[in-house]
């Protein structure tokens, strides 16, 4: 027996794991949540940049 003899076992294992079909809602939830987080992060980044700019302008000594 060698490593090659495990190839059918791997194929069988892979086949067994493909039995239940993928839950479409679960996949949509994963990718849409990531998109939402991306939008939120961009929004937060913009607000922080704006606040920082205002702060720098207002705190300039004169």
């Amino acid at each position, binding site marked *: 027996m060698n490593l090659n*003899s495990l190839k059918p076992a*791997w194929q*069988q294992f*892979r*086949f067994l*794991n493909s039995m239940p079909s993928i839950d479409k809602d679960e996949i949509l939830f994963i990718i849409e949540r990531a998109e939402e987080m991306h939008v939120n992060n961009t929004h937060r980044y913009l607000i922080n940049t704006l606040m920082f700019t205002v702060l720098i302008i207002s705190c300039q000594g004169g």
Partner: protein
Amino acid sequence: MEFQKRKFIQTLDAHRGIIKSLCKAYYASQDDQKDAFQDIVLQLWKSFETFRGSSEISTWIYSVSLNTLLSKIRKEKRTIATESIGAYELSFSTAMADNDMELLHMVIQSLKDVDKAIVILYLEGYKNKEISRILNFTPTNISTRLNRVRAELKAKFKSQHYEFKQS
């Protein structure tokens, strides 16, 4: 966008066996497998638009999935001492129907993370050159690691019921 999502889900569904098998090969608990599955799906989605079809879809899925898993494991090892796969029984219970499946279970359980990825790709029928491309190693490195794995397995399983010949 909706069309892309539908296409992505169809692609994922057609290759779900690969992703789920990889999660089970690397993580023992169902929660960890679910986490890993989500990370892989996310990475696949991020690179789905840029996938130009220069390789087989299954190769792309193996590449993204294995690299996601290996980087996830590296991160986990850096932050906390993670649950070692060796401390658990791999989730092969439903599959352990015969000796070959049992042996596959033992072999995968005994391998280190990168070696596991190499052996899985080898079992999937990929050549050393393709494995090196998928995992970003040199072909020589893959060949050396595979030979070392074969020798280790031969030594490990010699004392047990299984005889492991080097090929």
